[in-house]
């Protein structure tokens, strides 16, 4: 049976095969592509900073940061101030947070039979948009991160405004999502104690438990995360065994005949990316506990994503304290891009997981550009013998409604996938 899954920043077609009234195999098809990689070819390298945020309206900032880092990777000895690094990390954090709110209130709640809460999605997202705009001028679609730093200079007054946006967002979390002090939420090590709290998150977690959905959504229990910064670590986690020694060389993209989305594997195996993967690699106690009790199920996946909101808000507060305003925002590269022929790559953690950009430049012009998006990792459509992460997570379910919930628990981004 074919079902069109809508409102995932586009659509995907899921073809469900049933055997003995249980899902036996799901074919995932994305129906279009926008050929961004081709659009980039032959353009001046810096223009990628303007074009690439337009890969995606909801996580375009991650594409900007991935682009600037891939371009900077083409240089030898490029200088970057700590201030610029922190500012970039902050704005990327804000975009992740914005995504998580939208996913929870717009996508997840309706799947649990609740009314979509548009204003609860947009109120904190707008605050995070303001926080990005403070540095980048606007959100979505700024190109404020350029090779050598960021275009903006910031003042103490900007920092004060920024702290207000963050404080107001934390207050929203404490008044709505999980009605406890954020610091207590972040130090909580027992996933079951969350079930005793009030708030939109505990409500859903209780519902998962009550409706016996705790075992749903399990896949390979294999996680990977390549984007490193002051908060996220690079590494993979096989069940709970974490190793940090992984190389992007082993990431492979391959075409599939049935869909416009390409498969992505690491050493020939499919891995889950996203907040749950990041928390497993980072060994976040609360998520590790949920995983110990409920595995890589929708419970752990939902909790990890929502929990990341509070983690990143708190971490952003710390990052602001590390900002030294006397440092330069931008250091002009000593080599003009038109004299550069090189290749570079980057990996950043976008809301939905690892985003990889690879670029080849010849005399400052783009010769080749490759983008691997998080949704490609999670939704790689394998064959029956070698299923993708989300495909495997839907096997054995008896109805399409639950399968849709499992599928959307990966926070699918169709536009990114069809870049």
């Amino acid at each position, binding site marked *: 049976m074919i079902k069109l899954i809508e409102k995932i920043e586009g659509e995907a077609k899921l073809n469900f095969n049933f055997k003995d009234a249980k899902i036996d195999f799901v074919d995932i098809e994305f129906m279009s592509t926008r050929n961004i990689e081709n659009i980039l070819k032959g353009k001046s390298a810096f223009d990628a900073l303007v074009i690439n945020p337009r890969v995606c309206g909801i996580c375009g900032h991650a594409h900007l940061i991935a682009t600037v880092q891939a371009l900077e990777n083409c240089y030898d000895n490029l200088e970057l101030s700590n201030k610029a690094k922190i500012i970039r990390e902050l704005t990327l954090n804000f975009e992740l947070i914005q995504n998580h709110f939208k996913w929870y209130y717009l996508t997840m709640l309706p799947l649990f039979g609740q009314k979509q809460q548009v204003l609860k999605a947009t109120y904190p997202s707008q605050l995070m948009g*303001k926080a990005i705009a403070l540095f980048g001028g606007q959100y979505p679609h700024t190109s404020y991160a350029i090779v050598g730093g960021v275009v903006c200079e910031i003042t103490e007054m900007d920092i004060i405004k920024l702290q207000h946006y963050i404080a107001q967002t934390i207050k929203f979390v404490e008044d709505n999502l999980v009605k406890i002090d954020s610091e207590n939420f972040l130090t909580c090590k027992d996933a079951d104690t969350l079930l005793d709290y009030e708030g939109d998150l505990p409500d859903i977690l209780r519902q998962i438990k009550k409706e016996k959905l705790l075992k749903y959504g399990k896949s390979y229990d294999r996680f990977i995360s390549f984007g490193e910064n002051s908060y996220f670590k690079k590494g993979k986690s096989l069940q709970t065994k974490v190793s940090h020694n992984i190389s992007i060389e082993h990431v492979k993209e391959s075409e599939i005949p049935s869909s416009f989305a390409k498969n992505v594997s690491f050493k020939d195996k499919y891995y889950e990316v996203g907040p749950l993967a990041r928390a497993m690699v980072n060994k976040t106690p609360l998520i590790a506990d949920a995983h110990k009790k409920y595995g890589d199920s929708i419970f752990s996946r939902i909790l990890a994503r929502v929990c990341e909101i509070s983690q990143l808000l708190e971490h952003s507060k710390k990052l602001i304290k590390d900002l030294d305003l006397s440092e330069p925002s931008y250091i002009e590269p000593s080599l003009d891009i038109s004299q550069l022929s090189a290749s570079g790559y980057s990996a950043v953690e976008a809301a939905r997981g690892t985003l990889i950009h690879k670029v080849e430049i010849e005399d400052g012009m783009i010769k080749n550009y490759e983008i691997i998006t998080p949704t490609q990792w999670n939704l790689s459509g394998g064959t029956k013998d070698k299923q993708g992460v989300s495909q495997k997570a839907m096997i054995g379910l008896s109805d399409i409604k639950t399968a849709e919930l499992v599928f959307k628990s990966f926070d699918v981004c169709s536009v990114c996938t069809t870049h």
Partner: protein
Amino acid sequence: MKNKMRVLWLSAIACNGNTHSFLNYPFLEQFLDDFEFIYHPVIDSHYTLEDIVSKEIPCDILLIEGAISKEFQRADVSVVDIIEKYSKIVQKIVTVGTCATFGGIFRESGYSETSGLHFDQDKPSERFHDLLDKTISVSGCPVHPEVLVNTLYAIKKSAALKLDNFLRPKEFYAYTIHNGCTRNEYFEYKVDNHQFGELEGCMFYDHGCQAPFTHGSCNKILWNEVNSKTRAGLSCMGCTEPTFPKQNLFSTKKNMAIPENLPVGVGKRVYLTLAGISKAFKIDRLEKKLFDD
């Protein structure tokens, strides 16, 4: 129940940037009280996309996001067919963003005959000629949420909107992005030593800023209610115009050291003469740091 205006938000070849820009509108509660989406890419609606393409759902305004090509389908139906069906029953059509208006970035995405609804860049396109009277364009990549929402309210009120040659409401597009930029003085007095990462300086001379010849209200109606790209120190990329995206966006194209594109309506000879005179001001305040020790 209140009589809400019914709106169909149709995405063609798009990044959903306008969808998410719209979600930044500060008074969404009010908006959703006055308008109902029969379909929207992320907001729940009474109908599914499959309903929209297979039936004819009553609708008052058709919003189109993204570049348009006959080849591009939604729910297995060509977006051109969907547009043709709904354009007949709606009062107004709004092309939301630069792709839907002029083709934009995704004009180059490789689908046959991809363009905006009425324009292929700045060339009028014949395809939907009979819909010209119904259409309003709100260009921008993305469109500013207030520009979109207040245009919809103007439609609701049946207010007479004056439109420019590209069907854009003059109320928003008669201005240039340059109007209201906090860096204006560096432009006026020709202080041309801008470096990225500073509060001072104007990006027009070297860094490709298109604000003086790009139409829009970015520095009049601020983004996210707090800032604009040029205020932050990023060049205006000309994203509301049919030419978006031009090439070499971070550097100013010059002929004999004179910027090739001058402010709207300004002749080269006059510009040269006055620029020379303006430079003579040598205003100390603008030559040094804004927050001087």
